[in-house]
């Protein structure tokens, strides 16, 4: 009897463990969006560098991400028209990067506005990776 219990317990653990391994690739809409970019795993440090970089190669009034998004990802910011922007940090704004249409729209618009070109898939993944760590 005891051995059966042990066996069941071991099997349950094994199942849970294999699910845990399989989970990250398919854990939710945000992970799906990241996977969809088809880039290497995120390098959050590069995402951090992007967020703080003073590009100055896009529109003159938006040289950096932080011009509108606030000094830190936890802070939140303001559009040029004075409208509040929720913090970029996933810990603060739980639905960040979960709507594919919105993610594509804003990477396109803001990479052009700040950097002066579209962001690469790798840059997007790094950026999201940084915000997920915040």
């Amino acid at each position, binding site marked *: 009897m005891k051995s059966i219990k042990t066996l069941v317990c071991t099997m349950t653990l094994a199942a849970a463990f294999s699910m845990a391994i399989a989970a990250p690739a398919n854990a939710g809409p945000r992970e799906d969006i990241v996977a969809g970019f088809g880039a290497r795993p995120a390098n959050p440090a590069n995402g951090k560098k992007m967020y703080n970089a003073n590009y100055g190669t896009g*529109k003159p*009034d938006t040289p950096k991400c932080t011009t509108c998004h606030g000094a830190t990802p936890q802070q939140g910011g*303001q*559009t*040029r*028209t*004075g*409208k509040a922007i929720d913090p970029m940090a996933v810990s603060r704004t739980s639905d960040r990067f979960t709507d594919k249409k*919105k993610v594509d729209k804003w990477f396109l*618009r803001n990479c*052009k*506005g700040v950097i002066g070109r579209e962001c690469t898939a790798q840059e997007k993944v790094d950026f999201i990776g940084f915000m997920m760590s915040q």
Partner: protein
Amino acid sequence: MNKALILAASLSIAATTAHAETFTPISDKQIHAACGECHMTFFPQMLPQATWSKIIGDLSNHFGEDATLDAATQAYVLKYHLDDSADVKSTRAAKKWMARVNLANPPTRIIDAPRFIKKHSDNDFTRMWDKKGVKSKADCIACHKDAERGIFED
């Protein structure tokens, strides 16, 4: 009970906005997604069709922003505004915003509309503007707290 409440509520709104016109708040989710992520969703009845056609017809240079939308969304936003423009509606607000508008030379934006200019030209406005450090004339809510509900009492 409910009817009495609604009546009382409407009466109190009518009483507090005796001079300022009101607009029906915008509840359309597509409009909020397309326009409202950057600025307050402005009321179509503030401008004539000619102005909305021009503004929404070219979003690649939207007052200095590239606000390009996909074609289907752009068409939806345009129709939404044209169906409710100041020159096709006969509400009190639409009439007020059409007063002194020259359709041969229509305003290019809300802040150029005669109604906006008339309501924001005195010294009090300039004082309030400086005091509150308002970032943009598009930020109605900075002073009109209930602007999104269509109420522009100060």
